[in-house]
């Protein structure tokens, strides 16, 4: 009940008057395999009615023994807990390509990618600081490969 009340407050808070389009770049660390796996993700997005986020993502990541690239679509809901912080609750779905060279037998996998996240956007002036404490990423073929980790980046509203 308390959670519902919180959502109601966030939803009813006055929306910031932001431009409609944004471009952002984030870096993250994927955890869950035997090593930390960094990625760079670029997102172009449009915000509609100050609430609805629609975007596309391109990501690339690499670590010794592993390379990843992905393309995904993004949908989210903007909430406004304070004047200096916006909160985006979102989901991404798309395609990922993983190329693994651990050991002598390399392999490549095409999979679906599904992500869920809660991103805080802090107003810093010309750019926004984006902080995602926990980004959950699932790669899906017949089985799931599930990774987690934080993400941080900057966004520019156009």
């Amino acid at each position, binding site marked *: 009940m308390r959670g519902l009340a919180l959502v109601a407050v966030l939803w009813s808070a006055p929306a910031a008057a932001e431009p409609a389009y944004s471009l952002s770049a984030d870096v993250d660390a994927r955890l869950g*395999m035997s090593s930390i796996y960094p990625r760079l993700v670029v997102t172009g997005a449009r915000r509609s009615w100050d609430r609805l986020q629609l975007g596309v993502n391109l990501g690339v990541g690499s670590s010794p023994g592993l390379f990843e690239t992905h393309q995904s679509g993004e949908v989210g809901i903007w909430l406004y807990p304070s004047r200096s912080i916006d909160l985006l609750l979102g989901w991404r779905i798309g395609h990922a390509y*993983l190329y*693994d060279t*651990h*050991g002598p*037998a390399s392999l490549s996998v095409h999979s679906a990618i599904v992500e869920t996240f809660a991103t805080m956007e802090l107003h810093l002036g010309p750019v926004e600081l984006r902080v995602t404490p926990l980004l959950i990423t699932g790669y899906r*073929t017949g*089985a799931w490969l599930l990774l*987690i980790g934080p993400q941080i980046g900057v966004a520019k509203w156009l």
Partner: protein
Amino acid sequence: MALKRWLVVVALGACDLNVTFTVDRPIALVPDPSWSDEDVQSVARAAKCWETQFGVPFTFDASPTDQRIDIGFDKIVCIGANKGGQYSPPAQIDLCPVDLVQPRLFAYFDHAAARADIIFIVVLHELGHSIGILGHADSDLAVMGGQTALSALAAGYTQIPRTTAFTPEDVALFEKANGHRASPCSGEAVAARFGGEPVGCYCAVPCEPDVFEPNNNRGARIDRTGSWELQLCNDEYDYFSIEINARVRVESSCGPRVTFTRDSARYDQLEFDARVDDFLMIRRDGFGLCDYRLVVE
């Protein structure tokens, strides 16, 4: 507790939910229909280990139970170092295909039963996760650790072709998840390899040492004709030094290996004309109660 389990599973990269199975009701194992009979047998051997040690009621009959685990191959499981398989709650075990996991993790498996042993070892570990063991053992020897004891056994690196199936740490992890369960095995649950056969788990039956060859590292002296009923159950080898010229024959239904040595040359045969100073070694492959008769005439 549910949240904690969920987080542990996530941290392991295992999968998404908090469901494992109760060992109080049958748990059906359902390999992918495309699997060969030999691969299914490897799953059966892994299930038998948990049954022999802890009485876990794994079954291949899915009809009478609401607990079912689907088992298949999926190469996304191979992503990352040191990954051979994955238990994904609520009901799925996926294995890295053998042609990928063998060069990565089992490159030293070059024996005939390599494929069977790889599937056995990986499934054995993942079944442990399915019955509530969400963490891993600290010891590399453990089934829920690096499984080096079983791998060495499978690869033929062990002088004695058997080992305790589960380490005390495995037992502790199982009991933490499921409570204590008495083993249906009256003796010791062991993993063993018979000759070139794949590794499996068995219930070793204890028995009394032979009087004629009491395993005192000196060997028994054969200085007269006669016949002796002997056992290879509490020991791996029986030794005999021959001190008469005689016809020696080994009769057994369990096929012990016989090594007959003369002038540093070795012969493997069940019957031979022995001379003074010949040496005879009889050994079992694997474990278990193995009676044989030594006839000297």
